[in-house]
C-alpha cells in the first residue's frame, strides 16, 4: 500500500533516528511512505481560538501539498509519524471540515491555492493497527523478546483531545498491543498518558525535570528494559529528565526508544538503528 507521508522538522533533524526506523519498519510491513515533495513546518501546536484561523495556515498548506500528490497514493490518508505533527494536522483538518466558513476564509487568503477538505490525517500507529494488523508484527518478529519488559509512554497529543484521539483518552491500549505482538512484556504504566512538560523545557527546565521524575516513579520498581515513546518532544524531555534526575533515580539510565526503533529491533533491522541505541538496549 502506498501512502502519502508528512515527516515534519524533527524527523529530519533532532529525531532522524525516528524517521530512519519508521520508513524501514513501514517497508517491512508492506507500507510505502511517499514523502510530500514540498512541505513546511506544521506549527507544532495549533491555535485553539475560535475567532481566528491565523495559526492554521501552515498546516493547511501541508494539506494542500498532500492534495496535489493524491494520485500517487492508494488512499487519501496522510501519514504522520511525529505525534505533534499528527495532532496539529488532524485538528486543523477536523476544524475545517466542520466549519466551512473557516475553510472559506483560509482559501480566500491562500487563493489561488485551495484546500478541498479531502485529506484524512492519520498516525503511523493507526495504519499499523487498522490497515496492516498486529498479527503481521508477530509474523515479522525475528528476535526472542520474551524476557524484555517495556513501559509504553503515550504522552498527551495522540490521545487528547477526544476529537483527534487515536485511542481511548484515558485507557489507550494501542502501544500495549503493539508491544505484546512482538512477544515482549508491556509493563503497566499508570501515568503513560500524562504530559511530559512539553515546551516548558524552553522556559522552565526545572518543571520538566520534576514532571519526568513523577512520571517515572510508579514504574521504577519494575525492572524495565526501556521506555517506548511516540513523540520527539516527549523523547527529548524523557532523556533530559532521566539525566537530570540521575541522583533521584539512583543512577539508573533507562533508554527511551521510539516505537519504530522497538519494531526495527524486533524485526532484526539492526542496521537501521543507531549504535548508541543498540548498545543501550543490548538485545
Amino acid at each position, binding site marked *: 500500500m502506498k501512502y502519502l507521508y508528512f515527516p515534519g522538522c524533527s524527523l529530519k533533524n533532532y529525531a532522524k533516528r525516528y524517521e530512519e526506523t519508521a520508513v524501514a519498519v513501514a517497508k517491512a510491513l508492506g507500507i510505502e511512505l511517499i514523502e510530500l515533495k514540498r512541505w513546511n513546518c506544521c506549527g507544532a501546536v495549533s491555535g485553539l481560538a475560535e475567532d481566528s484561523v491565523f495559526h492554521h495556515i501552515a498546516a493547511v498548506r501541508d494539506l494542500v501539498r498532500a492534495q496535489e500528490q493524491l494520485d500517487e497514493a492508494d488512499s487519501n490518508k496522510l501519514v504522520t509519524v511525529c505525534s505533534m505533527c499528527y495532532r496539529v494536522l488532524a485538528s486543523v483538518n477536523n476544524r475545517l471540515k466542520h466549519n466551512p466558513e473557516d475553510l472559506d476564509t483560509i482559501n480566500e487568503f491562500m487563493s489561488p491555492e485551495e484546500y478541498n477538505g479531502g485529506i484524512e490525517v492519520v498516525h503511523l500507529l493507526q495504519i499499523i493497527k487498522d490497515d496492516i494488523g498486529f498479527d503481521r508484527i508477530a509474523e515479522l518478529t525475528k528476535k526472542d523478546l520474551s524476557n524484555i519488559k517495556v513501559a509504553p509512554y503515550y504522552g498527551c497529543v495522540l490521545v487528547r483531545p477526544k476529537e483527534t484521539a487515536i485511542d481511548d483518552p484515558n485507557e489507550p491500549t494501542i502501544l500495549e498491543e503493539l508491544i505484546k505482538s512482538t512477544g515482549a512484556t508491556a509493563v503497566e504504566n499508570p501515568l503513560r498518558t500524562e504530559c511530559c512538560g512539553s515546551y*516548558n523545557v*524552553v522556559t522552565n527546565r526545572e518543571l520538566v525535570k520534576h514532571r519526568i521524575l513523577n512520571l517515572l516513579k510508579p514504574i521504577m520498581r519494575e525492572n524495565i528494559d526501556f521506555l517506548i515513546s511516540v513523540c520527539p518532544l516527549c523523547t527529548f524531555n524523557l532523556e533530559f529528565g532521566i539525566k537530570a534526575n540521575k541522583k533521584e533515580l539512583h543512577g539508573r539510565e533507562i533508554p527511551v526508544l521510539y516505537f519504530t526503533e522497538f519494531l526495527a529491533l524486533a524485526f532484526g533491522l539492526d542496521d537501521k538503528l543507531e549504535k548508541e541505541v543498540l548498545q543501550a538496549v543490548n538485545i
Partner: protein
Amino acid sequence: MTVKITLSLPKKVFEISGENVYLCYQCGKCSAGCPIADKMDYLPNQVIHFVQMNNEKALSTKMIWACAECFNCTVICPRGLDVTKVMEALRIIVLRKGIYKLDLNKVEKIEELPQIALIAASRKLTG
C-alpha cells in the same frame, strides 16, 4: 504588567474560545488531573473562578503560561467545559495586547533544545 480589558472577562473568554465559564461548578477535577498543578501559584479551577468573578488576576497567574495544552482537564471535566481552551483564551487576551512571555535571546543553552520545543513555545508564548 497589568492588562486592562474593556469587556468583562467571561465575555471576552467566550468571544475568543466559545466557552462558557459559568458551566464550572468548582468541583476541582481539572486541578486533580493537572500534571503541573503542584508547582503552580493557582490551580486551574481557581483560575476559572477568577474568570467567573471577572477578576483580572486570572491573566497574571503562572498557571496559564505553564499550561502546555495536555487536555487532561478538558477530558475529565464533568460539566463539559473545555478548560484548556479557556487557558488559551486567557493567554491570547494578553498576547493580543503585545505582551509576550518568551524572549529567545534570554533562553539559556538554547542550542541544546530541539526545534519542536522552540517552535511550540514561540507559538504559545508570543503573538
